[in-house]
């Protein structure tokens, strides 16, 4: 549980004016914000403007985040809203055909709720992986590659007996599930219960 407060610590430190903590927050979560904007087919400029607005707004909200560990959810939701606003305004760069409906054909292929949850999940997985021992990280990365590296090759690379790679991999995945970012992500999902909407349905059960 100690690490679960790492985000909290960064939020609190940023609130007190610690710029290094802020920079670390941005470094961690900028991919999440940009991942959410990608669901809206914004121009690059618009996506960057949305990102900037979201971070500017977070600066003002550092003190009012009720639960700093819920920051990923706050960022994702705020980004989503700002994207919707920009979509409604229209695209800055692309010319608009007056005969086509500029709104209805946007982002119809992706359920935003699903996309946001997925973006948060991937962020949690990246953060969780970074917390594991280097050995675990390497094994998981080799097997998560596309295509995954064969056990024989992994054995040659690492000196692990082939027969032990499978069980070790399973333990690594369990450790990944148990990391604080992944647990915090799951806690956010449960915390959203009661708000209704797609999140709860997607959250599954423990």
């Amino acid at each position: 549980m100690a690490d679960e407060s790492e985000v909290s610590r960064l939020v609190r430190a940023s609130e007190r004016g610690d710029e290094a903590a802020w920079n670390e927050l941005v470094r961690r979560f900028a991919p999440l914000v940009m991942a959410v904007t990608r669901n809206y087919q914004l121009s690059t400029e618009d996506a960057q403007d949305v990102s900037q607005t979201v971070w500017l707004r977070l600066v003002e909200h550092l003190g009012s985040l009720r639960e700093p560990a819920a920051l990923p959810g706050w960022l994702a939701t705020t980004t989503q809203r700002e994207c919707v606003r920009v979509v409604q305004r229209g695209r800055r760069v692309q010319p608009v055909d007056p005969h086509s409906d500029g709104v209805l054909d946007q982002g119809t292929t992706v359920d935003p709720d699903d996309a946001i949850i997925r973006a948060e999940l991937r962020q949690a997985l990246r953060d969780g992986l970074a917390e594991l021992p280097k050995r675990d990280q390497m094994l998981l990365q080799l097997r998560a590659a596309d295509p995954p590296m064969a056990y024989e090759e992994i054995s040659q690379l690492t000196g692990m007996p082939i027969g032990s790679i499978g069980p070790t991999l399973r333990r690594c995945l369990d450790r990944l599930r148990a990391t604080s970012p992944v647990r915090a992500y799951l806690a956010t999902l449960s915390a959203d219960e009661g708000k209704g909407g797609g999140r709860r349905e997607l959250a599954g059960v423990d």
Partner: protein
Amino acid sequence: MRGKGVGAVSLPGWTDDELLAELGEALREVPADDGVVRAAQAAFTWRTVDADIELLYLDADAELVPADALVRGAGPGALRTMAFHGERLSVEIEIDEAGIVGQLSPPQPGHVTLMTTDGPQGTVEADEVGCFTFPPPPAGSLRLDCRMGAERFITEWVTV
């Protein structure tokens, strides 16, 4: 555009294979570029440390767009309405090609400054009924800084 588990983001129930596949997708996602990160880090310089300044929150309801605006919308000439609320002051603005028209509520005179990440873009007077106007703002993030005598209110940032 994605790996396994579409429509079922239920990590607790995932098999090892599903989790590995999602981890792979996560690691292959393009990270945010340096420019975006630097700009976001620079946002910290806009921290408002003065506790006497009241923050006016963007009203989520104001984002609802009437049906006719949707039909008309998303193009040149589209009108955007935003409302910011605080305990003692609200600000409503409309933005279109001609610029920004706004009103303070309750109606009162004051000074309103348009801020972007480049700094103040100009200050105008709100008249007796709280109305003020700005020329079209530059694209990007903006906020309004409202001063009534010794009192100061500042809106959340929005993208225009």
